[in-house]
């Protein structure tokens, strides 16, 4: 459930606003829904990595797929796979820590 909520709500937020709405949504939803620290971190990480990876894959396939390769080359990355890994990690890490922070803040405020 938490997974779906993060996916949908953060998706809408990022579609309409800047990228940093994403950690705020993860923070809020984990504050509200996460049962423990592992879940907060894990589900937020998983939800955002799938969302970011899925959407970036969709965009690169719908445009023919060459463009990410060109961008990877500029950053001296060996292949497009490393670019997709970077996307997963950047999105996932920020989301995971934001989710964790949400859960811990809740524990701190409401024992």
């Amino acid at each position, binding site marked *: 459930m938490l997974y779906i909520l993060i996916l949908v709500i953060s998706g809408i937020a*990022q*579609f309409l606003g*800047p*990228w*940093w709405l*994403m*950690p705020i949504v993860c*923070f809020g939803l984990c504050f509200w829904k996460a049962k423990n620290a592992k879940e907060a971190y894990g589900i937020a990480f998983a939800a955002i990595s799938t969302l*970011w990876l899925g*959407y*970036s894959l969709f*965009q*690169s396939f*719908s*445009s*023919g797929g060459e*463009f*990410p*390769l*060109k*961008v990877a*080359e*500029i*950053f001296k990355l060996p292949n497009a796979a490393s670019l997709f890994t*970077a*996307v997963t990690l*950047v*999105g996932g*890490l*920020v989301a995971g*820590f*934001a989710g*964790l*922070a949400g859960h*811990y*803040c809740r*524990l*701190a405020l409401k*024992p």
Partner: protein
Amino acid sequence: MKYIRALLSLLVAGGLTYIFSRPLGPAPALGPFFSPFTGFWQNAESVEKLPPADFKLQGLKGEVTVKYDDNGVPHIFADNDEDLYFAQGFIIARDRLWQMDFYSRVAAGRLSEVMGPLALDFDRYNRRLQLPEGAERLAESFTHDPTSKLIVESYSAGVNAYIQQVSYKDLAIEYKILGYTPEAWSPLKTALVEMVMRKDMNARSDDYRMANALAKFGKETMNDLFPDYPVEESPIVPSSTKWDFTPLAVPKVPELMKASMAANLDLEAENPGIGSNNWAVHGSRTASGLPLLANDPHLGLSLPSIWYQMQLVSPTVNVYGVCVPGWPGIGIGFNKDIAWGMTNVGSDVFDLFQIQFKDNTFKEYKYGDNWRPVTSRVNEFKVKGSPDIIRDTVLYTHHGPILYSQGQKPFFSDLPVGHALTWVGPVAAGNSVKALYLINHGKNYDDYRKILPYLAAPGFNVVFASNQNDVAITSAGHFPLKWKEQGKYSLDGSNPEHEWKAWIPVEQTPYVKNPARGFVSSANQFPADPSYPYYLGWKFAPAERGIRINERLGNMTKATPDSLRLLQNDNFNVEARRILPELLKYLEKDPSAKALPAYGVLAKWNLRNDPNEIAPTIFERFVKELRLAIWEDEFPTQDEKAPMSQPTRDRTWAMLQKQPNAKWFDNVKTTDKVETAADIITTTFKATIDSLTVKYGPYNPQTWVWSTAKGTDIKHLVPLFKSFSRMDVVNGGGPGIVNATTEAGHGPSWRMVVQLDKTWPKAYGLYPGGQSGNPGSHHYDNMVDKWAKGELNELVFLKSKDEQHPRIKSTVKLQR
């Protein structure tokens, strides 16, 4: 404990978000850059891009309709001129904003602000060339005329309307990678873009290298080896033409300066300096009975391309052609009645003055019998990644800035220290925006000549044709009125006679209308033969392209657009026709040279630099090496103390043909032997084959083929972005060939052929790039392959907003 835990995790989450929101050294901000919602993924456009939405824009007076054709060319229909130029700015910014911004930063000397310290020397040089000061003058001159004022202000408002509504997600990929955002556009930035063109076309000089050669060999030898007019030439204005004006008195030649100053120079290869072609064929030689016009300006090829195609329509105008992003109006194009094109004149408008300082404090310099005070100016640079402001003090005389002082390293090797610069860039004003407005609206020959006072710099050979069956060409621009050979060598800054004092009247620059031969043409060669009363320069582009074009046009009857297209792609090597038989005569006498397979290839060559030929690979390298072998011993281009110019290839081949025993063939570095022409030619030939073997392996028709050896590179404006470039594009041609493509990435940057007509013209054209500046778009480089094959697109020239055309793919409305 639980509070600490909460606080810590908040800090980590917040910290990560913060760090990923900011550029990390040279890397972009990772969060927004990688996010598929805003990052570079958004720049990948699908083939079937959804028709773009309509826009509500403040500043428009009425509604503007923009129709995009299948090549991504916008056709803009506005109800008034203000809206037209507003829309031109808005529409071009959608496709090319980063590029315009880049050009304006180049001329402003502000590239290092966004690119970092790598660009700092380039910035310093551009400021020392006074590009920003020149732009301020130009921007000022735009405001003196109500028409140009309206145009540049409306255009800026249109660009800014785009900037105001663009979000990070839709920014150009270059902004995202380099981590900065666009600044507001202004008429000054338009002027800065023009200064980039002035610099590219006019800001190089041989003066100092020539002065060094003069100091070593004396005037007599220089007159012999560096004549003021070539042996073989086919000038733009045909030789028999009578000048129908009374020329001004030309100043007398004053005493020349002898001394030449020592310089610490870091040498690099000179720009091969290739130019452009244009011509117009009178109706007496065409199938339709009305003129045809062709133009292919050669510039450094880049992605995004320097050109952008557009059709501009308002109640006062309907014009189609290409423009430079950032510069309003249409630069090269056609309307219902006329067509025009441009090539660089390349006259000598960049002179260096040797300055005599009173002492080592550099506070005063000699002028006439007096000492004048040196002034100074401090240029400030912000550099990406550095908190400090970098300051660069430049000394000024009344001639202009001292380009480099003792101990400073010049940006180009042909620039000496201790010399002041006078060049046309910051001095000539004119009003290019007004000039383009007038030619865009032109209906006949008289309208065409009206643009002359406004075209200042760079000087252009403006070719013209009308449906009243007039063809004409003018080497237009503001050219200093010089004494003979003024500026051939460095000038004496202390002698008042050495300065620029007046301009050649604009109506007296070389021109010709409807010559008897039935066509006009230019290929950057001498605008006129020595009967022209004014001195424009001693060296222009080599004559071969002009010779070939004039020969072929002279043989054309019933010409069609396709005949002109074929001529644009002509690969015939005029230099080889002139000198190869001579060279082969020497080689065949040497059994070991004759035995080489390369000899057979040259002997059987059809003299065409076609992509599948092998001979051009050998010939082009051979003649280049040969010229060095003949001259480098006496005229060292690479000498650290006194680098020199070398005689032109025209002079070299004339010497080989007529003075085979000239002393210059001897290599003065070998004291035990006196080499003859035969010795130099055969050893150089063998050495050429050796170096080709090192480069391409032992002789093999597959690896030595010209298309592989030459392969034209079309690089992104930031050469570091290699994957956004198109490398080794396969095509024929070469320097000195009508199809003037080079490995270094120069070549026809826009090919256009227009067939004039009483009712509606037909036109063809393309450039090696695409309409979109976005490397993630299918319109980024979609014309490159067709360009390499020498094909042209038929251009969609709509009669009105309501015309239904099968190639129109989408419509955008701009509303207030």
